[in-house]
Structures are given as C-alpha cells and as structure tokens.
C-alpha cells in the first residue's frame, strides 16, 4: 500500500524540504509547500476505492525490537481512516492554498510552511497509523505544530492577544497553554496505552481487536473501565472537551488559516477519531467480555460530549470576537460527535452511532473550515477581531457573505444543508439511548447554535457600518472583496456543504455502508438489546431539530436580523440576565479556576517550597508549628538559620568546626602537661590491662 505510506510521508518530506526551498526563493517555497499538500491529498484520494469496497489493508515493519513485545511501524487502511485521511488532506490543501494569499508578506513564513506541512504529515500519520504508539507520535506531532502555530506571532504584539478581558493572553502564552493542557490529557492516555501494552504486549490496533486476552484480564482485575477512561483523557484534551476544553478559545491567537486547519477541521477531530477507534475495538470485544463492561465508558463519553456541546454553545452566545464565536462553536460541535460515539455504544445499533459521529465530523470539517476561512477574510479586511467593530460588510463582500451564510446555516442544521443531516443523525442516535436528559440537552444546544449563528452573521454583515470601519475608510482604506485565491477555497467548501446537503441521505448511507465493513471485519455486529424507546427515533429527531431551529431561530431573528429589540439594553436591565451574561462571559469561571489550580498554585507552591524547604526547612517547620504551639516555635526558632538540606550541611560543618577548634586546645604547648598526659596514659593502659586480664 504505497499510497498510504506516501500519503503521510510526503508532507513531512515537504516540511523538511521547506528550509531548503526557502533558499531558492519565496515563491518556490510557498508554492512548493502547497504542492506537497496537494500530493498528499491526491495520494489520499487514491485510497478511496478501498473504502468503497470496504477492504482493510494492514502493513507493518519492525521498529523497536523489544523482546517479547516488539513494536512495529505500519499503516492501517480501512474505511474510517480513508474517510479521515481524505477530509484532512483535501481541506488542508484548500487551506494551504488560502494561506498563499492570507499570509502573504508575513515574516517567518518558512516556519509557517514548515509547521503547516509538518502538521499535515503528522495528522495523516495519526490517521493512518496501525498502532497506538505510532499514533501517539502523530498525536504529539500535531500538538507540537499547534503549539508552534498558535504562537506564530511570538513577539506578542498587542493586536494578536486573545482571551477574556481583563486577563488577556499573548500568543506565546496561548500556545503554551494549549500544549500543556492537551499534554495533561496525553499523560492519561499514555498510562492507559502502556497498561494495555503491559497486558497485551502490543500496541497494534488490529491485534488488540483480534486478541481478547488483554481485555478479559483487565476485566477480571476491574481495571478495564478505569483504563479506558484514562485513555479517554487524551481525546478529551486534544478535542477540547470538558474539562480540558479551555485551551481552544485562546488558540485563536494564531493566524486564521491555522485556526481553520488545526482548531476546526483536523486536529481537534483527532480525539474523535481515536474514540471511534476505541469504540470499534470495544465493539469487537463485546462478544467476548460482554456489552456491560464498556457501558460506563460509553456513558461517560456521551455525557462529556453532550455537556461540552451545551457549555460551549452558551459561551458562544456572548462572545465578542468573531473567531471566538467559531471557537466555542467548534468545541460545541465536537461535543456532538462525542455524544454520537458515546451513544453508539449505549444503543442497540453501534454502526449507526459511529456513522452519525463520523458523518458529523466530516460535515463539520467542511462547514467550519469554510466559516473560519471566510472570517479570516473578514478580519483581513476589517483589521479588527471584534464583531462590533465590523458591520455592514454584506455590501462590500458579497461572496464572503454568501458562503459564510451557507456555512453558518449548515452549522445551525438548517435543511437541506449537510449540517442538517448530520446533526439529525446525531440527535437520532441520542434519542435511541433512551436518556431523555441527554436528548433534551443536545436539542437545546441545537437551538442555541442557531441563535448564535444568526447573531454572528447579522452583527458582522447586516448591522450598520461601525465607527471603526468608518475610521478606516477615513484613513483612506478601501473596504473590498478579497482576492479569488482567498475566496475560492471557502466558497468551494460552502458549495460542497450545499451539494452534499442535497445528497444528504445518500452520503449518510455511504458512510453507514463502508463503516459497517470495519465492524464486520472485527467479526461481529453489536449484539445488544435495544433500550426501551417508545417513539420512532427518526421522527423524534426530525421533530427535535426543527423545533430547535424554531426555538433558536426566532429570538435570533427578532433581536439581530430584524433588530426589533436591543439585546444589550435587555441584558443591562435585568439583574438575573446580567448575572447569567457575566457567568457566560467569564466562561463559567472554569478558566479562572484552572488558572488558580494549575498555574498559580503550582508556581507559588514551587516558590514556597524553594523558600521554605530548599532554603530552610526548619523555617518552614517553624511557620507551620507556630500555629500549633508557640512554645515549640521558639524552640525551632533556634534552628532558624540551620535549615534542612542546605543548612543541615552548614550546621554539621559548623559543629565539626567547633569540635576541631576545641581539639586544638589539647595541644597546650606546655611540656609539663605533655608529660602529664604521658603519665596518665601509662596508668590508664596499665589499668586497662590489669582489669582486662583479671588481675585486678
């Protein structure tokens, strides 16, 4: 399967070649980079027949010769990975194209192209990998690129800062935050991977699927669920799910093309992809160790997804920055995918849930990439990131407006766009779980989604021209549509969401068909009893999506499109609403809590330890003990200067020095005393001898 290898190797080679190409000239470097991503996309598309046929191809070569449990490097080409690879590579290519114009003239472009291509390569590596360890390479590779690209403007000019005022963060900080937060999840994932490895002696996904020993052993020791949940931490971090979702809004500090590529279309989907993989493995194992063993895991996945979807959507309602609306919306939509995958494991029909998740993944990738790219164009023109400093752009940028509108409607799930079908599929699976709360939550989220989409579109495009724009025009800047090389990519994406939307059912069928092959390859269907559902799921979900559209759309239309009421004054007028607004604006205070817990506390802890333990343990002892008893504290106070680690040494040294000095007094210099010593020792020796010999 040469294509599969080349698919991920090409962009990586392209990345490594970038510094060399840069020597040949800017044009060569820029176009060269795009060509490499195109090549990757072409290789990926050559894999499509395999997916259509539902074949599974698995190739591997030796890598780490660990006795008894060797690690290989390989590719696994099955419908899931082919779908992912195509989505990733084609969207990447479009975004690379877009970057040509968008990033034109920025300093540090060599770095940019390097990281972009390196990212694409790693993402494809992740997707096509046949084992967990190799996947982890790609996993961390994309994380690294994300770190580098978020902090692309590492000089931290004020205009690139993002975050919730008043505590805004410079790009370099945001990059670090993203890296460390996702890393936190990765740690858990690594533990789980290693634990599984310890039991199974392999990282290989197909082997884990076919070899069941490890799972039953884990099952018996009661560790299966904990380990799966630890494994889940990785996807949670990477896909920005609650509770590790806080890095993504700040990740908007990077260039918009980066946001589109990494933080909307591809990298954040890696988590979903991995969960899908786990789900497939789990599904293959259910006939051995029973359905119940995975139940908790799937419920947790579903609830994390559902809750995150709601959480982020509410935050998107009050966001002021255009890109942050999209960022929150991304978190929220990924929540949907997780929800679908979780529901898949709970419901009777595993394939359906999987299909819903992957289907939503694909459709989201398309419309969200389009939205981001379009918003990048808007930002480019308006030279601001705040929506209320835009307005009235419909006139000036009709193409952008149209494509953004289509994409936003697709996001909201308006029929017959692609988003409608995928969201409906998710809602349907969700309904099938029989968990009403979950279903209501997701439906409510759908409503909110429509609300903020409308808000975003109208504030940006339909509102009257803002002061900021007038100032810009006064400065002689002409507000105009962007060049074709920029708008072609996002128009293309918006167009495809429309086309695919029209073909919606067929697309879903196709996904269903090809994904069911994988499960079949894993030897089984999910043999699960259906949960009691008293209502036809299809109708329920249709009903839910339509009513959600109505519930969310009406107020959105009322306030923002028709502008019948002023939302600001309403919020200002009501104490409760204002409190709610502030709560949402501060991101449910989660961010602040995290900073206290994971940044301020460790650093101050470190400083405290440095001061108290490293410099003086006894100082610290005194500090603590003085609370208990003053008397003891005074005692300890004597040792104030004699600290523990450092100071113990000085203390001992001082003691030795004192002994040494006192030993010098033995040398009195008086001959009389010297001879006296001689006489005394003579008598002592005599006495010792006499006593020990028993004479005395």
């Amino acid at each position: 399967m040469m294509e599969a290898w080349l698919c991920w190797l090409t962009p990586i080679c392209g990345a490594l070649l970038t510094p060399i190409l840069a020597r040949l000239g800017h044009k060569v470097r820029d176009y060269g980079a795009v060509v490499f991503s195109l090549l990757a996309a072409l290789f990926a598309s050559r894999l499509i027949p395999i997916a259509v046929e539902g074949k599974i191809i698995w190739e591997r070569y030796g890598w780490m010769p660990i006795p008894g449990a060797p690690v290989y490097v390989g590719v696994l080409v099955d419908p899931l990975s082919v779908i992912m690879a195509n989505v990733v590579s084609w969207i990447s290519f479009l975004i690379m194209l877009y970057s040509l114009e968008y990033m034109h003239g920025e300093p540090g472009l060599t770095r940019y192209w390097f990281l972009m291509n390196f990212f694409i390569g790693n993402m494809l590596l992740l997707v096509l990998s046949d084992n967990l360890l190799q996947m982890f390479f790609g996993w961390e590779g994309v994380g690294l690129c994300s770190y580098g690209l978020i902090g692309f403007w590492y000089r931290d000019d004020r205009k690139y800062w993002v975050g919730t005022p008043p505590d805004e963060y410079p790009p370099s900080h945001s990059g670090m935050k993203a890296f460390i937060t996702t890393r936190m999840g990765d740690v858990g994932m690594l533990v789980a991977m290693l634990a599984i490895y310890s039991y199974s002696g392999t990282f290989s996904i197909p082997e884990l699927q076919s070899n069941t020993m490890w799972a039953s052993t884990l099952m018996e020791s009661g560790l299966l669920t904990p380990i799966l949940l630890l494994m889940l931490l990785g996807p949670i971090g990477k896909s920005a799910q609650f509770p590790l979702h806080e890095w993504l809004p700040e990740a908007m500090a990077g260039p918009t093309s980066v946001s589109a590529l990494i933080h909307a279309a591809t990298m954040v989907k890696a988590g979903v992809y991995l969960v899908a993989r786990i789900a497939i493995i789990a599904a293959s194992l259910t006939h051995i160790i029973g359905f119940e063993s995975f139940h908790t895991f799937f419920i947790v996945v579903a609830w994390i997804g559902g809750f995150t979807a709601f959480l982020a959507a509410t935050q998107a309602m009050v966001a002021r920055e255009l890109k942050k609306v999209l960022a929150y919306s991304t978190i929220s939509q990924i929540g949907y995918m997780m929800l679908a995958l979780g529901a898949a494991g709970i419901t009777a029909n595993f394939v359906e849930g999987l299909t819903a998740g992957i289907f939503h993944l694909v459709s989201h990738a398309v419309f969200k990439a389009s939205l981001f790219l379009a918003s990048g164009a808007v930002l480019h023109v308006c030279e601001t990131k705040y929506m209320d400093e835009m307005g009235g752009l419909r006139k000036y940028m009709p193409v952008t407006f149209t494509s953004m509108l289509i994409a936003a409607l697709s996001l909201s799930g308006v029929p017959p766009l692609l988003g409608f079908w995928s969201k409906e599929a998710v809602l349907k699976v969700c309904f099938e779980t029989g968990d009403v709360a979950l279903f209501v939550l997701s439906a409510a989220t759908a409503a909110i989604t429509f609300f903020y989409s409308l808000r975003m579109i109208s504030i940006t495009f339909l509102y009257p021209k803002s002061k900021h724009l007038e100032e810009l025009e006064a400065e002689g800047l002409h507000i105009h549509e962007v060049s074709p090389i920029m708008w072609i990519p996002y128009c293309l994406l918006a167009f495809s969401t429309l086309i695919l939307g029209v073909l919606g059912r067929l697309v879903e069928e196709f996904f269903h068909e090809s994904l069911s092959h994988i499960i079949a390859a894993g030897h089984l269907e999910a043999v699960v009893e259906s949960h009691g559902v008293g209502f036809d799921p299809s109708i329920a979900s249709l009903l839910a999506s339509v009513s959600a559209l109505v519930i969310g759309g009406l107020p959105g239309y009322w306030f923002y499109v028709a502008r019948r009421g002023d939302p600001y004054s309403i919020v200002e007028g009501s104490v409760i609403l204002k409190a709610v607004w502030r709560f949402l604006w501060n991101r449910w205070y989660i961010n602040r809590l995290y900073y206290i817990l994971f940044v301020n506390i460790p650093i101050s802890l470190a400083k405290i330890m440095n001061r108290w333990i490293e410099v003086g343990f006894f100082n610290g002892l005194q500090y603590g003990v003085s609370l208990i008893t003053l008397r003891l504290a005074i005692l300890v106070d004597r040792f104030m200067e004699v600290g523990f680690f450092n100071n113990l040494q000085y203390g001992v040294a001082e003691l030795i020095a004192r002994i040494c000095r006192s030993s010098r007094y033995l040398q009195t210099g008086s001959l009389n005393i010297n001879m006296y010593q001689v006489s005394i020792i003579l008598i002592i020796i005599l006495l010792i001898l006499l006593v020990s010999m028993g004479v005395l």
Partner: protein
Amino acid sequence: MVIWTLAFGCCTIPIVGWVSDRLGLRYVREWYSSLVIALAFIPYILLIRLVARVGVVVYPIPSLFHSILTVDMVSVFFILPILIVGFASSIYSTSYMSHDTGLNSYYTLLSAMILGMIGVVSAGDFFTFFLFWEVMSISSYALVAFRKDRWEPVEAGFKYLVMSSAGSALMLSGIAIVYGIAGTLNFAGIALAMRTPVLASDPWLILAISLIIVGLGIKAAIAPMHTWLPDAHPAAPSPISSLLSGVMIKTGVYGLLRFYILFQTLHAYWSLILSILAFLTMFIGNLTAMFQTDIKRLLAYSSIAQIGYITFALSIGTIQSISAALLHVFNHAMMKGLLFMAAGAFYHATGSRDISVLEGVGRRMKLTGVILSIGLLAIAGMPGLNGFVSELLIVSAAIQQELYLQAALTIINFVISVAYYLRLLQRIMLKEPRSDLSRVEEAPATMIAGMVILASLCVFVGVYPSMFISISELAGRVALDIGSYITSILGG
C-alpha cells in the same frame, strides 16, 4: 651490608666535608652523602635477594656479646622507605640547606639518623635495638634543633628531647622487666619464653608492656603522647621533617609490630589497647589538622592521623591487616615525605609557612604545585594513587574481621581528612594570591629532583600496586609466622 655502608658514610662525611671546605670545593660533601645513601641500595638489593631465598638473615655483630641483626621480610620492607626518603631528602638538602652553616655535622647526623633507623628495624635483640634507637634519637634531636639560633627549633627540640628520651627510658625499663622474665634479650628467645601461658597475667609483664607501649607510642606519636610531633616536625628543616614524619615515627610502629608479635599470648589485650589508641589518634590528628594555619603543622597533624590508621590496622592483627599496615607505612612515607618537601620548597621560596600567605603560590611554582597536588590527592585516598590502595586494604581488612563500626569510623576519618587536604590544595593551587608572590620562583632542580622521586613512586604504586601488595602480603605473612622466626634464629 646496608648498615656498614652508612656507618662508613657517617665516619667519612666529616672528613670529606672538612677537606672540601679547605679546598673550597662546593657541594662535594652534599653529593658525597647522597652518593653514600645511594650506594646503600646495592647491598640492600643483595639483601633482598638473600632474604627472599633464606627467609631470615642473621648477622652477629662482632665484639658485642650475643647481639645480632636479624633481617626478615618485614625489616626489608621497612628499610626500603627509609632508604628512598633518606636519599630524596639528602638530594633535597643540597639546595635547601645551602645557606646554613655547620653542614658537616648536618650530613653526618643525617646519615647517622638513617643508619639508626635501619639498625632499629633490623635489630635482632633488645641490645641492638636500643643501641640504634638511641643513635637515631640523639641524631634526630640535634637535627630538629639544627637552626638553634631561632626560637622555634629550640623550643620544639627541647620538648621533643625530653619527651622522647623519657620514652626511651620508659621503654628501657620495660625491656629490663621483660629481660627479668624471659632471661634473654634476644627477640626469638623472648618469643619462645612468652609462649608459656602462665606468664600472661604476671603483673610485672603487664607493667612491662605498658611501659613499652608508652615508650614506643611516644616515638610513634600515638595520641595522647603525640604532643611533641606537631612542634618538632614543623620546626625541623624540611628534609628532616620529611624523614621524621615519613619514616622515623614508623620505627615506633615497627617496634609495636615486633613486640606485638613477640608477646603472642597477649594479642587480645594488645589489640584492645592499640585500637583504642588508634581511634583517639585518628580523630585528634584529623580534627586538629582541620583549622591549622601553618602548612607544615597541618601536615604534622595529618601524620598523626595516618599513624592512627596504621595502628588500627596493626590492632586487627590478621595477615591482611598487617600487610595493609605495612603497605600504608610505605605509602605514607612516600606521600608525607613528598608533602613536607613541597611545603619546604614553598617555605624556601616565600619565607613563610602560613597558608594564607601561600595562597595561590602553586600558580607561580607550577611544578612544585603539581607535585604537592599529587601528594595531597594521594594522601586523601584518591584512586589511582598509592594512598587509596593501602586505605582500601585497611578498611577491607577491618570489614573482613566484621569490625563494621571500626571500619565506619575509619571511613569517617578519611572523609574528614579529605576536607582539609582538599582545602589546602584549593588554597595553594587555585586561589588568587593574597600576598605579593610576584618574585617567587620555581624551586631549584635538586629540590625538584628529590620530590619527583617520591611523586613518581606515589603514582607508580597507585597505578601498579601489584608488586607492592604482594611484597607486603608476604611480609605480613612472615611477620605473623612467629614459629619459623624462632626456628630460623635459634635453630631446631
């Protein structure tokens, strides 16, 4: 015969000196005395071969009743450092003492002292022992106080004289009592007589042993009888210091070893006393050395500590420990001789022994500095140099006898001693000079030559200890094999 060579030297050096003074020839006397000591190596090598073949060589001394010299492996092992350090310090003296007067007597006394030491370690009875002991002692008194117009040598010399001669007298009293019990002064005869277990608790014998331990202990500078040493060794001219510290105090050790073997029924008690004294000595030596400001005084205290290690090894009393002690005697002679010579070179160049004045002097006198560093690292027990080998053997002998506490205490002492050796090294070699040392120049070639001999031996033994370990082990084995000692001297 080694002794005759040196005795010949003793007699002829004054004549040669006088003649060359008359003729106005410089350095003839110096070279002559070095030559005499060097010549002594020839009979020494013959002696080694003889001893290796025969085991114990017995020389009756004509015209002195029954007095004999008996040379066995132990004696041979002791003679070697005496000759080497003696030779090195004789060469070293050539330039070191060139500004002094009365050099005829200096060199005569020097060779007399070497003669005395060699005699002591090859004596076969108490008469000979005492004879050479006194030769050695008296010449050393004179040498310590050689620069008699200064306060320090005079004061130190007098203290040394009183303590040491009191020690000799105490030892002589002990010898007298032993004679009274055994009826002979011959070592082998005494050993034979001491095999009777009844004697073990004879109060007179106990008194005799106490007197002998104290008498020898004074010479060996075992605490608390060490007080003369830190005064006398720094006060003496540096070549003499290196002889005193390097080998003369070891004659006391030799005596302790010899008598330890002779009184074989008393081993346990003897070990007890020695080990108590050994730890006292180690700690006092090391702790007191820590804050010395005078470089030679520091080295003197360090000698005390080293004597503590050796005594400890003796007190264990196994073949391993005795051979470790012997090896350490040799090693310490090399290291301490070297260190005193290096200190003397600094003194010679700067006129000061104060470490704070000498700070950074190693940068001006690079070669001497490097030699000093070798000595210090060796004595601090750095692997690859000789000190490490014997210290390792001492500790391992202790551990073999399951004396864990004692081994631990010894290791603690090693650590303490490393501290001051290293500080000395640091201050001499690394610090920026505090005082004006710009006019300081490298030591003269003969002084360097004396030091290089010892330094190269330090390195050689450290890198290739095999030969010395085997010899010392052989010596240790011979030392403890009292039966064949008696047979080979008394016959049958």
